[in-house]
């Protein structure tokens, strides 16, 4: 039920406002306030497919919905992951759920990371905090066709070592030499031997073939703004830089206007944008 690729007849058949009951297969805590829900979609959504960067609306019965990016491998069938930061009542309710509990799912929605434009090029995947979650499907997609891409560099920043997501995978990606992984934290203690500082600082350790590089950036908006500036300063073409935006999404199909940002609806036109599409809005107050 991928809306982007559906034919008009399919769209008639699938109402994007209808939520589908799906059981939780697993809950994994990534850190103190972030967890990954693995949903078993074999029976409820057997034909479900998504593109990296798309999101679902997750419905907690009796409470409401929240937009959450899909964080699993798009090539994996039968289950999908959502990595969720516990920040409000809805995400706290999701955090209390366990294996076998049911939630509602509708989606996938929104634009996707254009992974294919990076074929034959080097790739920078720059993320901060929970921003690694919507980019994890990009890494998986590239790893499935690794030979089609040049260097793949994952830059990731977190508040502290304990706050980092997907630590085992970051280590695996780095160890298997298919991905260059640089991780930095804002604060370290004597046990942390890695980088300390902002994620943009990691770019100074990489020699880039800038004109042949595509960058995908996701994290707090201020981090994306500074990272985009730094990438541009290093001669990466602006049209090769993509960001994922976040706003309060309700309907997810561009009707309600909750996620409107200037002339664009994040749920429908985004969340992934090419930098020139979104740059004029990044510095605007009250947007």
């Amino acid at each position: 039920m991928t809306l982007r690729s559906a034919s008009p007849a399919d769209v008639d058949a699938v109402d994007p406002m209808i939520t589908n009951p799906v059981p939780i297969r697993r809950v994994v805590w990534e850190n103190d306030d972030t967890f990954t829900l693995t949903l078993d979609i074999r029976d409820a959504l057997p034909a479900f497919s998504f593109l990296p960067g798309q999101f679902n609306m997750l419905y907690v019965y009796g409470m409401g919905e929240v937009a959450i990016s899909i964080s699993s491998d798009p090539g994996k069938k039968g289950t999908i992951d959502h990595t969720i930061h516990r920040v409000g009542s809805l995400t706290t309710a999701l955090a209390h759920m366990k294996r076998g509990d049911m939630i509602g799912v509708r989606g996938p929605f929104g634009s996707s990371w254009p992974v294919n434009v990076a074929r034959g090029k080097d790739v920078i995947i720059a993320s901060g905090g929970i921003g690694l979650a919507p980019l994890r499907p990009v890494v998986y997609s590239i790893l499935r066709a690794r030979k089609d891409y040049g260097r793949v560099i994952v830059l990731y920043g977190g508040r502290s070592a304990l706050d980092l997501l997907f630590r085992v995978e970051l280590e695996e990606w780095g160890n298997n030499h298919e991905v260059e992984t640089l991780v930095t934290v804002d604060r370290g203690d004597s046990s942390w031997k890695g980088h300390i500082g902002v994620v943009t600082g990691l770019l100074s350790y990489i020699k880039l073939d800038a004109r042949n590089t595509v960058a995908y950036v996701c994290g707090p908006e201020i981090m994306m703004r500074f990272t985009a500036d730094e990438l541009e300063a290093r001669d990466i073409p602006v049209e090769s830089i993509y960001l994922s935006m976040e706003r309060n999404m309700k309907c997810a199909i561009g009707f309600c206007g909750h996620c409107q940002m200037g002339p664009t609806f994040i749920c429908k036109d985004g969340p992934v944008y090419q930098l020139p599409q979104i740059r004029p809005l990044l510095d605007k107050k009250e947007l």
Partner: protein
Amino acid sequence: MGTEDLTQILLQHPFIQGLGEDHLKTLIGCAKNVRFQEGEYVIREGEAASKFFLIRTGRVALEVEVSGHGGLRIQTSGPGEVLGWSWLIAPYRWHYSGVAVADTRAISLDGECLRKKCEADSSFGYEMLKRLAEVMERRVEATRMQLIDMYGLTTTGGHK
């Protein structure tokens, strides 16, 4: 190591790139190749800031001693970066400690020697100051971003 070898090593460091030949010769007289093992202190809080370092390989963490919490690490300097500017600013004392968190190779530059040369040759002094100001600007900008605690700002419902 001969002056010629040291020159070649220095020329590979971003801090030196674009420096005029005369200024490079002036700088070489104060430079030395150094190496630190993981866990070794490169600089110590409160001690005289008599040097600064151009990191070639490895990584040095800036550390501040906080009572009850031990050494808190606040920033790292890696390949191509500069460690220390207190050698240029009175009272020439380190405000932080720097510990090698990986085996590290660097060029050590004698601060007292450089200060004298900066005083004697204002063109050289200005060139050093411009380059260090750039390092300071980047560090201040990075520190401001760390102060924002941007990863704590994600307040919406978990998308991303």
